[in-house]
């Protein structure tokens, strides 16, 4: 984030403090999608993501002086508030991320190749698995992409919170280590090491073969 943007954000927050609706609209429209996505990736629940987004900006309206430009960017501040709200919610209800058992028919078109079950990179196998065939069939590209997204989303959602948040910020919101460190209120080195560990965990999770839910009913637990 540039210094100009920081100054502009600080000015906008000062305007919000005196009730300037236009300033609030600018800040909200620019910043809220990232906050909403962060909460959505962290919880896997659109309704909770909506509530958290609302609470984050409500906090900005009610006490804008909590944002101190000297301590970090507005984006980092908002992510920090979102994170606090999420933690409070988790304390209240530990069952928010309960996606493991969600039925998802898209998952049944699982790749059987030996590499990660992720398509689109051109590196996912020799082309002998049915994924390669599906990827070239008309109409199946979307299927393959959706399947990939579903697998990665599920893998991310099952990471421990500390690891999940660095993946969401650094990978899905494309923050630098410094920005993520500011949002998470931790050293840059911690972000780096957590991200490294989180990615290794994701690789492990995606390497595992996916269970076929309907097949499991007749005793075939996984695709071989």
């Amino acid at each position: 984030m540039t210094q100009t943007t920081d100054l502009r954000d600080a000015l906008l927050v000062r305007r919000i403090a005196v009730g300037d609706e236009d300033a609030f609209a600018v800040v909200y429209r620019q910043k809220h999608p990232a906050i909403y996505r962060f909460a959505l990736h962290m919880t896997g629940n659109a309704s909770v993501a909506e509530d958290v987004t609302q609470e984050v900006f409500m906090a900005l309206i009610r006490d804008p002086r909590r944002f101190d430009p000297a301590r970090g960017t507005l984006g980092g501040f908002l992510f920090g508030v979102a994170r606090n709200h999420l933690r409070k919610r988790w304390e209240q209800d530990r069952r928010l991320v309960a996606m493991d058992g969600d039925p998802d028919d898209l998952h049944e078109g699982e790749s059987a190749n030996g590499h990660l079950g992720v398509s689109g990179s051109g590196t996912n196998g020799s082309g002998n698995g049915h994924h390669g065939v599906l990827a070239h069939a008309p109409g199946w590209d979307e299927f393959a992409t959706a399947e990939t997204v579903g697998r990665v989303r599920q893998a991310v959602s099952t990471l421990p919170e500390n690891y999940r948040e660095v993946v969401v910020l650094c990978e899905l919101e494309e923050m630098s280590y410094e920005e993520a460190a500011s949002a998470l209120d931790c050293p840059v080195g911690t972000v780096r090491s957590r991200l490294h560990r989180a990615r290794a965990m994701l690789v492990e999770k995606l390497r595992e073969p996916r269970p076929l839910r309907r097949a499991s009913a007749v005793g075939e637990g996984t695709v071989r």
Partner: protein
Amino acid sequence: MNCAQFESIVHEIERPGTEGFALRESALEHAESCGRCARLMIEAESLDSGLRALMAAAAEQKAPPRVEAKLMAELRRQRGAVLQRRVRRQIVALSTAAVALLAAGLSLHYWKGKGGTANHPASPSVNNPAQANGAVAPASPNIIEIDDSESASSFQPLPYADDPSALEDGAVVRVEMPRAALASFGLPVAAMESDGTVRADLIVSADGTPQAIRLVSQNGTSSE
């Protein structure tokens, strides 16, 4: 580069600004000669691809418009409350200033009055409330001089006036007020005459409460 070094940076090779990105060339060279590290690199690239797909799938996600509407309503409510508080503070400040001013004026007037009595003990124009109206007799009345060009009615006790014999101190204050304000002192105001201002003398007790009023008019004009 050896395998341990490669493993420590494999997830950063495609991330600009990181140590892994800086060592990208030597990492690729190592991967060409090491099958295990080549596989790690392919898995990392595959993960990148999956995360990009997830990011793209979530790119358009944002909170529903009702959230912004609720926040805007809160901002307006907040601004209204702030304005109300500010007006209340201004009223208190103005009232305090008015009381202070009145007190200062009365003190000055009282002080000048005492001096005036000493300097003009036999002044025929001294208008002692006790003389003007037997019903109202402050113990230490102040002096308002009636010019030759003026005439005054007698003091009329105000509806909520204290017992004149109980007044220990007080002052006579010359004021100019809207004619319509006479009604608030319990004096009759004809509808046709409610415009304009009138000059009046008020006997004010030591606590600042008006006790009696008389109207002053320029000779040749009617004051009531």
